């Protein structure tokens, strides 16, 4: 791990229960500048909950989140709003604002949250759409976009806030197979350009080629983590090996991603 790099995000001992079901039982990890962490794990094991705890859409029962050495105080609504601006989030089902066209989706938070002037926000939004290859679709509404285009708009919307770190919650799992590549392509480019990212995904080709570290979440704990080569070829636990084997079976050869 690049220990000399700046520390961006610290997740310390996060616990979360729903009713008497303890979903997260103490999760800790750190993300340095420019790193991409991929989180994998069986369904219903709390991966989404963990991402939501990071940007406080779900308030953890215990544990703390630190951004650039500053602890997030969830009692202070104002601070949370400022903090969320620095953490981009991309959802599985896009959550584009249905009543706004693509460019307005990207610019609305610039105007309403950052207080940018309309023209300045429009320029910024257009340049973000350009990054994800959607300038031509700028004035189309979500209902007029394909799933892959929607997800790219939602990535542009998050990027427009100039976040320190981006969280992706299964960004491709609601997409038809032929649309997955365009979204992964955008994410890969982001990673190469040095964006700090935490990605929940089962796309092992992506994980393999982009991740600095894979975190395997099971039963509310990190069972194992490490660079892709280690998890794929020398996992400590039989569980990890089996799970990764099943994923590659399901989602295709780990090198398959490059062929797309």
């Amino acid at each position: 791990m690049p220990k000399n790099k700046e520390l961006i995000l610290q997740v310390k001992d996060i616990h979360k229960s729903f009713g008497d079901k303890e979903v997260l039982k103490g999760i800790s990890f750190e993300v340095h500048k420019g790193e991409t962490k991929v989180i994998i794990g069986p369904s219903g094991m709390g991966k989404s909950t963990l991402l939501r705890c990071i940007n406080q859409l779900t308030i953890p029962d215990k544990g703390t989140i630190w951004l650039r050495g500053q602890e997030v105080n969830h009692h202070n609504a104002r601070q949370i709003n400022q903090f969320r601006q620095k953490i981009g989030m991309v959802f599985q089902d896009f959550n584009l604002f249905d009543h706004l066209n693509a460019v307005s989706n990207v610019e609305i938070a610039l105007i309403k949250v950052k207080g940018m002037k309309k023209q300045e926000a429009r320029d910024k939004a257009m340049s973000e759409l350009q990054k994800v290859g959607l300038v031509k679709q700028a004035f189309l509404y979500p209902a007029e976009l394909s799933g892959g285009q929607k997800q790219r708009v939602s990535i542009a919307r998050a990027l427009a806030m100039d976040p320190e770190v981006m969280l992706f919650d299964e960004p491709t799992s609601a997409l038809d197979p032929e649309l997955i590549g365009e979204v992964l392509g955008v994410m890969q480019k982001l990673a190469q350009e040095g964006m700090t990212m935490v990605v929940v995904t089962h796309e092992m080709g992506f994980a393999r080629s982009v991740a600095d570290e894979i975190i395997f979440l099971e039963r509310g704990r990190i069972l194992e983590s490490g660079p892709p080569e280690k998890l794929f070829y020398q996992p400590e636990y039989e569980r990890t090996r089996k799970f990764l084997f099943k994923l590659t079976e399901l989602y295709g050869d780990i090198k398959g991603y490059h062929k797309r």
Partner: protein
Amino acid sequence: MINWQFFLEILFPALQEGFLMTIKLVCWSIPIGLVVGIVIAVGRVYGNIIVSFFCKAYIVFFRGTPLLIQLFILYYGLPSLGIYLSPFVASVIGFILCSSAYHAEYIRGAIQSVKSGQILAAQALGMSKISAVLNIVLPQALRRAIPGCSNEIIYLIKYSSLAFMVTCIELTGAGKIVASRYFAYTEVFLVIGVIYLALVSLVSKLLNILEDRLAFPGWENKK
């Protein structure tokens, strides 16, 4: 054999003032009623326990009691508490209270039909809850509430005739006075009926145009 003189020289001049009063009543009641309805609906859905309870009680009370009783309380009842309202003001307040309660229910339903992911995405961008409600939820919910609220606005135009019961002489009241003086009930109320019909048709047309203007792609099929 139609008595044109009666229509031209007596009925129409008398109705003219009443008509203007009706217009004045609805022009005050409709927008304020809508705004109050939005506030009550938002309070009901997003308020804390106390606010939400208050808003629910408001809706239950003003939807659950006859408008005529509300008007009587406002005009004849309040003076016993030392509050004197003019017939016009009592009527407008009554109409606002009643229509806002109905609007609030339509808008509440529309708010709850907006996908929860919309507000999550807004908050994830750093929007405060209030800003997310104002900028993301309400623009979608209000569009969805237009058909219901249109109904209520049309009802309001018609039940504005109840203002006559608290001595505010609007269209119906003006007609009633002429009708009983000249004993010409059929002619007068036919004319008044046609005027209401024209007014209601005009307003529904305008509301339809508004609905179409505010539609966006992907929206049409939700109507």
